[in-house]
């Protein structure tokens, strides 16, 4: 075995090594400084990112008999996962420092989750896909319930685990069906199978694809597989929820693009209608339910469901003539959505440092008593609404462009009505922040949280002001797919 696989695998290896190292480091310094351990974790993420940059210039390569593929697309998602994980660690830092949750375990799980998320976008084999999905999911299940003393957290973790295991069952069952008909689990073999037996496609292949779609729909929190989302998002600590809402969803979309939009793209007409129906249901249910919420975490949970619906619009709109536009709309939206949602959860983390602030009404008057926090939240909410000069607007602009270009007028119209409905509940948050009177006590200043808020809010604005640069990177990433 040459050194080559090590070079290609370096980001994953660095991440996995850091995960284990952090666990050991914490073990050998039981009362030690938790800042050091977190610092090591961040350092690991930075090194992984640097290895990613080195790989960016390399040609795409398959490894392990086409089990994984290293190309710019996978590197893009690794960087996204690493960035979101880093923000999560910063978000959770006050908790770790005060030893409210075990630092070693937390960091290990977060990094393991990062490995899983990255590998999801790397996999070009259904088995690798399944394994990486499990690495990610198991880590997130435990992270949900890591605050053991909170009964709701345990309940949420249990609920998540049960439903998650159930959906993984669907996924695995689907893989079995596909293997049974195509005779292979690698994506390229499946593509070949589609070409050679276009007219003699066995029924079980369709069933397999449908089951696979169910598994994905669960992970991206698409209606009707969304029931767990509000409960789990509410149960977990907001820093963990931030990772769940952004990273897990992004990784699932990465894998979804690889399988559904590349590997079995030729049979898109057959599953097109399903995705459209899913997207309409997801947007509508998500937005309507978010309107009713009084709890900010539940509101953000339903909003994340709605955004999955917008992303599915772009998936449905991706056709061969506008493949580039469709996929780049998805990738851009994932970055934008990651920044603004992570930021919004970070505001919740910031405000809940002393005592939990879960009701939206708890935030009355924050806009003026904590001007920077209020400003950040206003930016995130406006971005989630899709107001110009923010990342969310450019993201929506591209999704609408893709939908119109592939003549999905009805879908675009429904997305449009939905984004108007969504304005109601996002604006209500700003309204509570700025226009309701309320006493907000002093909140301890946390430098790590300020870092997160700074990065996410400035990032949201930068993406909105200068999207061109990002698009070039995304174009590069997409060329890696083929």
């Amino acid at each position, binding site marked *: 075995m040459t050194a080559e696989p090590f070079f290609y695998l370096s980001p994953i290896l660095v991440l996995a090594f850091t995960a284990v190292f952090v666990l050991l480091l914490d073990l050998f310094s039981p009362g030690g400084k938790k800042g050091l351990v977190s610092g090591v974790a961040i350092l690991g993420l930075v090194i992984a990112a640097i290895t990613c940059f080195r790989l960016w210039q390399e040609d795409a390569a398959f490894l392990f008999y086409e089990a994984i593929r290293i190309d710019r697309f996978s590197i893009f998602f690794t960087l996204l996962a690493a960035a979101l994980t880093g923000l999560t660690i910063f978000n959770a830092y006050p908790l770790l420092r005060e030893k409210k949750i075990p630092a070693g375990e937390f960091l290990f799980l977060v990094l393991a989750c990062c490995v899983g998320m990255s590998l999801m976008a790397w996999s070009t084999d259904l088995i690798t896909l399944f394994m990486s999905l499990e690495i990610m999911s198991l880590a997130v299940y435990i992270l949900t319930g890591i605050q053991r003393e909170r009964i709701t957290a345990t309940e949420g973790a249990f609920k998540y685990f049960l439903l998650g295991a159930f959906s993984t069952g669907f996924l695995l069952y689907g893989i079995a069906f596909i293997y049974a008909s195509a005779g292979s689990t690698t994506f390229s073999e499946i593509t070949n199978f589609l070409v050679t037996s276009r007219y003699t496609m066995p029924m079980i292949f369709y069933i397999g694809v449908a089951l696979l779609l169910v598994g994905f729909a669960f992970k991206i929190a698409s209606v009707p597989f969304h029931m767990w989302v509000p409960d789990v998002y509410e149960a977990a600590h907001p820093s963990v929820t931030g990772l769940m809402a952004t990273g897990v969803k992004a990784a699932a979309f990465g894998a979804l693009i690889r399988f559904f939009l590349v590997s079995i793209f030729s049979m898109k007409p057959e599953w097109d209608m399903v995705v459209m129906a899913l997207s309409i249901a997801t947007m509508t249910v998500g937005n309507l339910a978010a309107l009713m919420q009084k709890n900010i975490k539940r509101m953000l949970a339903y909003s994340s469901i709605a955004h999955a619906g917008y992303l599915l619009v772009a998936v449905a709109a991706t056709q061969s003539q506008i493949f580039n536009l469709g996929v780049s709309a998805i990738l851009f939206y994932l970055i934008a959505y990651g920044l603004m949602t992570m930021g919004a959860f970070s505001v919740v983390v910031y405000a809940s440092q002393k005592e939990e602030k879960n009701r939206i009404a708890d935030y009355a008057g924050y806009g003026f008593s904590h001007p920077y926090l209020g400003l950040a939240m206003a930016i995130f909410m406006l971005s989630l609404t899709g107001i110009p000069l923010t990342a969310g607007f450019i993201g929506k602009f591209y999704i609408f462009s893709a939908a119109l270009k592939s003549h999905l007028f009805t879908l675009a119209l429904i997305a449009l009505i939905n984004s*108007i409905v969504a304005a109601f509940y996002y604006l209500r948050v700003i309204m509570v922040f700025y226009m309701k009177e309320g006493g907000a006590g002093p909140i301890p200043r946390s430098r790590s949280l300020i870092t997160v808020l700074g990065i996410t809010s400035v990032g949201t604005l930068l993406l909105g002001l200068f999207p061109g640069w990002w698009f070039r990177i995304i174009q590069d990433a997409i060329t890696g797919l083929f």
Partner: protein
Amino acid sequence: MAHSLLTVLICLPAAGALLLLCVPKVLESRYRWFIPALALAVSLAEFVFSLALFCYFDASSHLLQLVQKVPWIHSLGISYFVGIDGISFWLILLTTFLTPIVILASEVRERQKAYLASFLVLETAMIGTFAALDLFLFYVFWEMMLIPMYFIIGIWGSTRRLYATIKFFIYTLAGGIVMLLGIIFLMYLHYEQFGFFSANILDIYAVDLPFDFSVLSTQSLLFLAFALAFLIKIPMFPFHTWLPDAHVEAPTGGSVILAGVLLKMGAYGFLRFAMPIFPEAFKFFTPSLIIIAIIGVIYGAFLALAQKDLKKLIAYSSISHMGLVMLGLFVLNSHGVIGSVYQMLAHGLSTGALFLMAGMIYERRHTKKISEFGGLTAVMPLFAVFFLIILLASIALPATNGFVGEFLILVGAFQKHPLYAALGGTTAILSAVYMLRMYQKVMFGPITREVNRTLKDLSLKEIAALIPIVILIFWMGIYPKPFLNKMEKSVDYFITHQQNYELGVYEEK
């Protein structure tokens, strides 16, 4: 040569807002006058800069002038592209003229810094909207206006402010998003026909849009998408319901800017975008548009007749007047359009000033109910004089600016069809009825409430805010030529070439 004057005009207020927000608390609490003075200085500097437009603007050309173009999102052909013609020239001046007045007259003490900064940000957005020559950029500024206005109504408004501000936001956003779909589709059509993306308005004018005399043809649908956004913003019947709420709840400054400038954006949108880009569809829809404009004129006036609240009355009167502006625009002849642009300026000044004065009286009595007043002439003679002048301008008395605009519009409407002029002309009668009745109830008669005896007359600051408006009202009413001169060429070109509009960029000699 690339001019950066417009860019300076767009950026200066926003920079001023940032500066304002950076003022340390110490300075703020020690010198209470500092914040308003700084905001006023910024807005006055902006006004002085905008006067420089006079030096650079060549009134003998209909082409786009002071153009600046910088690529922004290259892959979609989106650029930062600004420039003005004779119409946007005046609207920008109207904006820079009204903002210092609003800031000067502002009585808000609570969270003053944020309040004044909001107005400066709003000014940036408004000037940007009037100067934008790229559809995408136009949309960006169009929506950017919502945010400061949302805060202005929502934070500094009166009791039902939350309801009013969300209604305002959702109405405008709904129209805006539909327009966004239209914009994307236009860009896409341009790509199909020319092989590259562009959101540049000059390129979009050249796009060939299929039209087959039905509502469902591409051009009609696109026209409706744009028209909806503009109709909501103007606002025209039946999309007007957000306006009275927003006006009643907004603080004085918010009402002034809303009535003075924001409402003009819809009309400007028709002039710059909806009518020239979709000429056939516009022709197809002209009868229905004229009908709703006339309904707006009469319905708004009747609603104004029934109002017991001072601000609501002015709000409905502005629906009626904007209906007339649109009538002038839709008849599409030289008198009508030039009158309509002129009336936009006149209405901006007179209704802005009316709201300003309603605010002044509200500051003194904390009520806007007409029945709470009576006999104020005796207590506040100066106020009475100013109020009368502005009110007469609003009902278009000859020698005031309202007369010139209204007269031209009615002449234009008459040329199209005498009936239009007859129906549109009712505004002259009805507005006299509701305005003068209101004036009579508030100003004349015996003093019915004891509190009203002690009301103070206008302060020096308030007079300073009103004097410039009054001067302009008479100037524009008695000698309108310099104002008409600047816009004439653009309006002429608009009328003669509406069917094949292709504005070029002005080359300096």
